[in-house]
């Protein structure tokens, strides 16, 4: 402010040199600003118009095109790209046999099982926010969840029922795969991955059973793990177990429970297997399972029926051609 006053005071026509230069700068600034304002009056409406025009078609914005790599026009090319350029959808091929979409063939059970796994992961993570895997506290956490946490009850219910549905889904999926002979060449290995996934699904459900730490879970897990006492060679009540030095304190059941009875350590072990160990293993197996479905030639059918006399004839290769 002081400087401005000084300049203003010495702003006379007689002044020259440095002071004259200062006058020039001021005029320059003023004219520039005036020009800018004048330009703004035309530029901004033009920009606004351009912006509004641009927003009329958001699919042309840079943000949109950076996310979606292709147009949304209803062309065969875009339909294919919609699947191929999406990380979640690219598990699917771009096109499939027209009969393969029939629900009566696949029953959709594999997909439903996977969807239930996603629901279980989602509700499970939310449940973990309210749960401590320690004796006394665990049961109280479930009560808290049921009575005080907003939507806690429906959260727990959804997790429980989705788990039961997932077990049923896995069974029915396996049943369908067997009935359609889909385990046959070249899908033998993927059937095996599927069997392992069945086992891990049951183990996931079983380890979760103990976590509310109520009578139901406690006795179910007691009954279940008591079987491990009788493991041949490795259990203290199993054939040849005592002969190999197995006691309740060093056998396979002790390893499962982290103790000789279902107690705090068993709760913690269940929790870690349930929330971390088995989900990771199962996820890896699921990745392999889905990948192999594609690599083994997509879903198995509905294939054209084969006749009995064609059973031992090679269908491809020089032999088939030579016949």
């Amino acid at each position, binding site marked *: 402010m002081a400087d401005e006053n000084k300049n203003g005071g010495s702003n006379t026509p007689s002044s020259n040199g440095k002071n004259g230069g200062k006058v020039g700068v001021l005029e320059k600034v003023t004219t520039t600003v005036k020009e800018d304002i004048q330009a703004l009056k035309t530029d901004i409406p033009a920009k606004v118009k351009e912006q509004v025009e641009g927003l009329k078609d958001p699919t042309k914005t840079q943000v949109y095109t950076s996310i979606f790599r292709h147009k949304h026009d209803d062309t*065969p090319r875009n*339909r294919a790209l919609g*699947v191929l350029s999406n990380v979640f959808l690219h598990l*699917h091929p*771009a*096109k*499939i046999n*027209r*009969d*393969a*979409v029939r629900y009566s063939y696949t*029953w*959709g059970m594999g*997909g439903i099982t996977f*969807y239930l796994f996603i*629901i279980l992961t989602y509700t499970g993570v939310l449940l973990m926010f309210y749960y401590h895997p320690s004796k006394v506290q665990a*049961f109280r956490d*479930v009560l808290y969840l049921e009575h005080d946490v907003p939507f806690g009850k429906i959260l727990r219910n*959804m997790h429980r029922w989705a788990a*039961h*549905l997932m*077990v*049923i889904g896995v069974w*029915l999926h396996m*049943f*369908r795969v*067997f*009935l*359609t002979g*889909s385990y*046959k060449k070249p899908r033998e290995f993927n*059937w*095996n991955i599927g*069997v392992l996934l069945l086992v891990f699904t*049951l183990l996931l*459900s*079983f380890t979760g059973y103990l976590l*509310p*730490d*109520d*009578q*139901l879970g*406690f*006795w*179910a897990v007691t009954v279940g793990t008591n079987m*491990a006492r*009788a493991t*041949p060679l490795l*259990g203290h009540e*199993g*054939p040849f177990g005592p002969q190999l030095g197995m006691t309740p304190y060093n056998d396979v059941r002790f390893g499962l429970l982290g103790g000789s009875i279902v107690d705090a350590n068993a709760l913690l072990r269940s929790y870690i297997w349930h929330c971390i160990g088995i989900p990771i293993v199962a996820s890896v197996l699921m990745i392999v399972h889905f990948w192999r479905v594609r690599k083994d030639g997509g879903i*198995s*059918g*509905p294939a*054209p*029926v*084969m006749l*009995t006399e064609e*059973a*031992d004839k090679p269908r491809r290769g020089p032999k088939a051609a030579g016949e």
Partner: protein
Amino acid sequence: MDWRQLWEICSAPDNVPIVGLIPLLAFYIYLAWKQAHANDVLIDQLEADPALAKTHHRKTWPFKPGWQKEVHVWPFLLRIEFLAAIIVTIILMVWSITLNAPLEEPANPNLTMNPAKAPWYFLGLQEMLVYFDPWIAGVVMPTMIIIGLMVIPYIDTNPLGSGYYTWKQRKFSIGTFLFGFVILWVAMIIIGTFIRGPGWQWFWPGQTWDHNRLIYEVNRDLPDIFGITSNLGKGIFGAIVVGGFYVLGGGAVYSLFRRKMPKDFQRMSLLQFSIMVSLWLTMAALPLKMALRLIWHIKYVWITPWFNI
């Protein structure tokens, strides 16, 4: 008839999945059977008419010239998946709003639940505990089930019936799987859930679960019936009976294959055939042992100082 008891069992929250599983399984068996039957009719028709077999598209669904063989996944598959996800979500939501997950008293090691039941999907194995010692029912059998399932693709050498429902072309394998899954797995679960009451005793549906009921069962061992008393004699006798079951059973399966399924037998290697026979006989031993126990009250067949079967 104790309707209240029946309702209590059926409406116990953790039993609801099994109540749901029964109609679900019935529906899907029907759905599979319907398609298998249609395919079998088509196969018969094509086998009788080789000229038609060369031109036919070989599916029961219509296919007209000019139709595209393939459809786009987007939208024709994805819309179905989307719909399935919505339907499952709705079912799950409604189920979760109307029925609460079970929560009993806090865990108490001093107060045994009676009956103390495993989770419903393991009740088949728990039911097996009645007929077998824990090391068989709880350890060997689950292991055999897993191994048995895993070897299926490697011992089923029948190239027919890959990718379509059929009964005619795969009677043996489908019959075996249906028996293992529906009878031995699901039916045992149903028995374990609805029939087994306090003390793991047999209560018919509608019978009151009497916690004080006592059953005086006199179970005998098979060697006792034959008057064998010495331990050595019991061991040898049991080994002969169990070994005899596998040898005679193996012969019977061989005879069945040679007469009814010569092609399947021809395709199988010795290793494939013997693995199939031993697994199949082990599975067949289950209902046999159950019959021995339920009808003739026989507990063990083979008694040794280390294990009993």
